[in-house]
């Protein structure tokens, strides 16, 4: 047998394909990492009638795709997928396995890592290769207030689940070719101890302000109720929620449940767009776990502007309108 080349595997998570591109993002990152350790990028696809996804993964960077196709694999199953994955991992010995940190990825991968008796890092926001050729996995802790870099020095494969949206996918390449390995499913499928009684696709659940990853927050500096309404449009375009300061709620530009910064009204978005907010202490206490802050205010000395990553000195209402226009140009649907 020819000498095994090293390989980096990406678990093909194709459910919610159009909203969730994490598998493609991981194929892209795996391609960069593979160059550094001279490895081949492979994808796995478990399911039934999955040719479409196999083609997609090849077009997005997979040199090889391991396919398990069977009517019994139509629905995602932790028990069955772990057993199948264990089998092919033991056969082909990948160096690294990357899985999107979707609900399924975060349920399936821990059991797989345990079955393989190897290390696993959760919900990574960074992946790299160090001088020794190890996968360096950057994972958040304490609500993202700290980042931890983690390696798996000896056990193999090195495994990570990765947060969707961290990496950019490679553009679709129709000319790309890849090898398809149909994994023989001898005999019965592994047993599933969890019975699926029903499964219905839901519209995305309404986000609560406190958990929303994107928040657009407005203060008195928006000027009027009419202009404040533009924030709802901006939030819709960004896929976020609207928050408000106390004066705005008193003025009835926004409902009470949009209030940010009183007891228990804390938000911790990954990104906050703050418009015409001065930054009173009650408000800033409620946003201290925010990731990236973009603040707009005419007054460059407002407290909110000092704690922002990007402080825009301008009229909040005008910037809001310009931002909506520019985003609509850029976001392709």
């Amino acid at each position, binding site marked *: 047998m020819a000498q095994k080349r090293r390989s980096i595997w990406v678990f093909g998570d194709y*459910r919610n394909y159009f*909203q969730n591109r994490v598998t493609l993002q991981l194929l892209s990152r795996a391609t960069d990492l593979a160059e550094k350790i001279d490895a081949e990028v492979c994808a796995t696809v478990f399911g039934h009638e999955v040719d479409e996804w196999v083609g997609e993964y090849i077009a997005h960077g997979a040199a090889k795709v391991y396919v398990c196709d069977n009517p019994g694999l139509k629905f995602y199953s932790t028990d069955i997928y*772990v057993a199948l994955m264990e089998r092919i991992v033991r056969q082909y010995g990948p160096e690294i396995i990357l899985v999107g940190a*979707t*609900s*399924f990825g*975060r*349920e399936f991968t*821990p*059991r797989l*890592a*345990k079955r393989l*008796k*190897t*290390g*696993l*890092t*959760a*919900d990574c926001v960074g992946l790299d290769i160090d001088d020794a050729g190890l996968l*360096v996995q950057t994972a958040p*802790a*304490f609500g993202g*207030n*700290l980042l931890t*870099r983690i390696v798996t020095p*000896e*056990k193999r494969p090195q495994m990570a689940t990765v947060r*969707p*949206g961290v990496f950019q996918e490679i553009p679709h390449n129709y000319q790309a070719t890849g090898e398809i390995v149909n994994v023989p499913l001898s005999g019965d499928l592994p047993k599933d*101890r969890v*019975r*699926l009684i*029903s*499964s219905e*696709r*839901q519209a995305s659940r309404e986000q609560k302000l406190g958990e929303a*990853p*994107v928040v657009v927050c407005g203060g008195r500096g928006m000027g009027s109720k009419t202009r404040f309404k533009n924030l709802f449009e901006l939030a819709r375009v960004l896929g*976020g929620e609207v928050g408000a300061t106390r004066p705005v709620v008193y003025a009835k530009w926004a409902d009470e449940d949009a209030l940010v910064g009183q007891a228990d009204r804390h938000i911790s978005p*990954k*990104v906050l767009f703050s418009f015409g907010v001065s930054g009173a202490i009650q408000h800033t206490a409620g946003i201290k*776990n925010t990731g*990236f802050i*973009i603040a707009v205010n005419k007054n*460059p000395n407002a407290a909110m502007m000092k704690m*922002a*990553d*990007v*402080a*825009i000195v*301008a*009229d909040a209402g005008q*910037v809001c309108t*310009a*931002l909506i*226009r*520019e985003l609509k140009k*850029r*976001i*392709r649907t």
Partner: protein
Amino acid sequence: MLKMIVCMKQVPMVSDLPWDPVTGTLTRDAAEGMMNPACKHALEAALMLKERHGGHITAMTMGPPMAEEILREAIALGADRCLMVSDPKMAGADTLATSFTLARAIEIFCPDFDLILCGCHTSDSETAQVGPQLAEELDIPSIAAVEDLDLRGNTLRIKRVSDNFLETLEMDTPGLVTVATGFFMPRYASMAGLQDAFREPGILTVGARDLGLGEDAVGLQGSATRIVDIFSPVAKKENIVLKGAPKKIVEELFERFDDTIGSLIRKDLKAVE
């Protein structure tokens, strides 16, 4: 009788913690501890099942001696029995070593369980891995992030949302669930209940030797992963100031930050060519 185990963890109450730069682990003794919020929801789910069907709840934790507090709190809330797994040798355990150690303790001290409940994730390390890995180690089925559950005979019926799919699932006992936050609102312990719980005699505490485990099987030595370093990403705010006409500012904002903002809102914001 339904025999339940609720696995819980004590987590630091503050979010800005000192850490040991040499070992890369958090110096947990510097912070006040509390019961991890998701573990409270798991305990509440167990109490709900006990009220409906009768049953017995063992609250267990692995951690330093001070973590005993959360077991006493669990007693005050309605747990029947506690098990504390504590040993300096167990420090620095990753999820592989933690789930291994918990499984051995369960096999010895509560082998005839029907259901294990864990919180869906902890507020400190946030891996959400220990629950599923404990189930794997015990070779029982598991369902993560459950929002509703009930029992009929030995069958658990569960509802949860997984990647935008509303699922109804069943599994037979013995099994393990991790409980999502927000669906089983935790009750409060009464002051008298807490006082009684803290007056109770010692809690059953077991170490590596009691579990028949060598040093190399637990803690950092039994772990597959190593922490390289821990750092704070928050300290690096640059406070970039943009000025000028709104339209120009917005263009500049996207020129400089399209990748940053795009990844945060999960949309591709690269200018259309």
